[in-house]
């Protein structure tokens, strides 16, 4: 982990309340998809954790939804502004596992799945991608996944885009997968675990003090004892989760 000043290259709206920010700075320590960064914003005390959506080691792409004061402030930044960022944080997904995998992203759980998908492709895997949103206005990155050449299924709860229903409805119809990677709101993660008979890895969110394992703010109970979402997670294996 290190603390690094990143320069904002661009910051644009890509869906309802959702922004994509690209930044320059040393991101070379990021080693796994599913890792996250922790961002200091003027006037706020705690940093804000955001998943790495993409990186080439020298730049960083983050996709975030405006839900409160911090993300609101982020949305107001623009080219030339700089951000104080701690990175990389968290364990990230272990891509050595699961040959025939499904990637499942819900809402702002989608961003880390983009880097995950790229990494899986790099090692010769060919995952199927399911992206779930509430409604058409909130859909983002469907095209970007398609451009990667993977099968991409989009679901919306109200049917206004892609397939009507939840990610689990799409998952049901995939017969041949043997592993899954998921990120999204907790109810979605739970539904995925209930639906799927295979093993898988899921990324969790928790309110964080530090984001790097020092404060015990983000602990959760697992079958193998207490784990810190920020350090021992955010990615947990299906088998260890206590719902």
């Amino acid at each position, binding site marked *: *982990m290190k603390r690094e000043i990143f320069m904002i290259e661009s910051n644009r709206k890509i869906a309802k309340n959702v922004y994509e920010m690209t930044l320059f700075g040393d991101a070379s320590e990021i080693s796994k998809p599913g890792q996250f960064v922790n961002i200091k914003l003027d006037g706020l005390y705690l940093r804000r954790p955001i998943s790495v959506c993409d990186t080439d080691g020298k730049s960083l792409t983050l996709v975030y939804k405006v839900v409160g004061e911090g993300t609101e402030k982020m949305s107001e930044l623009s080219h030339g502004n700089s951000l104080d960022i701690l990175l990389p944080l968290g364990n990230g997904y272990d891509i050595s596992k699961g040959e025939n995998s499904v990637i499942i992203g819900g809402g702002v759980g989608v961003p880390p799945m983009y880097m995950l998908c790229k990494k899986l492709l790099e090692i010769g895997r060919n995952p199927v991608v399911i992206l779930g949103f509430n409604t058409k206005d909130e859909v983002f990155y469907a095209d970007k996944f398609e451009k990667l050449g993977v099968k991409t299924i989009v679901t919306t709860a109200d049917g206004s885009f892609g397939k009507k229903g939840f990610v689990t409805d799409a998952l049901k119809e995939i017969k041949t997968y043997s592993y899954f990677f998921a990120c999204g709101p907790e109810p979605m993660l739970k539904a995925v675990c209930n639906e799927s008979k295979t093993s898988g890895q899921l990324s969790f969110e928790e*309110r964080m003090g*530090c984001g790097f394992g*020092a*404060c*015990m703010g*983000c602990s959760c109970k697992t079958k193998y004892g*207490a784990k810190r979402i920020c350090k021992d997670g955010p990615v947990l294996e299906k088998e260890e989760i206590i719902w």
Partner: protein
Amino acid sequence: MVDTRVSLSGLTLDNPIIPASGTFGYGYEFANLYDINILGSFSFKGTTREERFGNPTPRIAECTGGMINSVGLQNPGIDKVISEEMPKIKKCFKKKVIANISGFSLDEYKYLAERMNGEKQVGIIEVNISCPNVHNGGMSFGTDEKSAYEVTKAVKSVTDKPVYMKLSPNVTDIKKIAKACEDAGADGISLINTLMGMRIDVKTRKCVVANKMGGFSGSAIFPVAVRMVYEVFDTVKIPIIGMGGISSAKDVAEMMLAGASAVQIGAANLVNPYACRDIINDLPKIMKKYNIEKLSDIIGGAHNG
């Protein structure tokens, strides 16, 4: 060369900077970031007799200039702290550490102090009678003179290491509690622990932390901490470790002027993991700026005149 050394009950620290209990783990997360041997010492996470998961999550809330935590003393329990954590500390930190202990009964405090007494690397035992995050324990000992006296006596009876009582700011008269600890033989006072605070999420109409209330710390509480250290310095003769909202070398000087012999840095470590290193680097600069040759000279300096 400026002299940043201070001493606490016979223990000389290279500088007064001590990461505060609960914000520095057992040190090794930070040892990956910088050589933590530059620190004066550090106070490790509060230890209880049994392993504790602590309170349900969410345990953290954002505040103006600070944060609320309701971790609730998550720790692996004294056995594992001694068998697993202490050896790991030894590997990355060569100086004496401060063992922070928390109990739910006089007996538990006594037991913990006795166990810590056997640990060579422990330079000071810091007795937390002020944790706002556990029911029927912790804080209630620190909000009443008589209990504060009793815990101090009990702990002192089983250890020959210096005993520092860590006090709660959530009291009407901090002077009385500090005096009771001194009277019972405490070697020093650590203060302040967190203020009791609460945030409510207007969207969900629920308390942000699952435990409803939690401990409020960070820059926002600094003026309360300075005031209490000042009051206690006027009241007791034993040294004070001052803390609460310190985030810069200037804050350190201000806290020492109020009466602190050394200081602890808590929440600041969480938002800037290099906070202690940065402060230690800045100390000589601010000493030069404010004409301080020997840092220990300014302890209690604001009480003159």
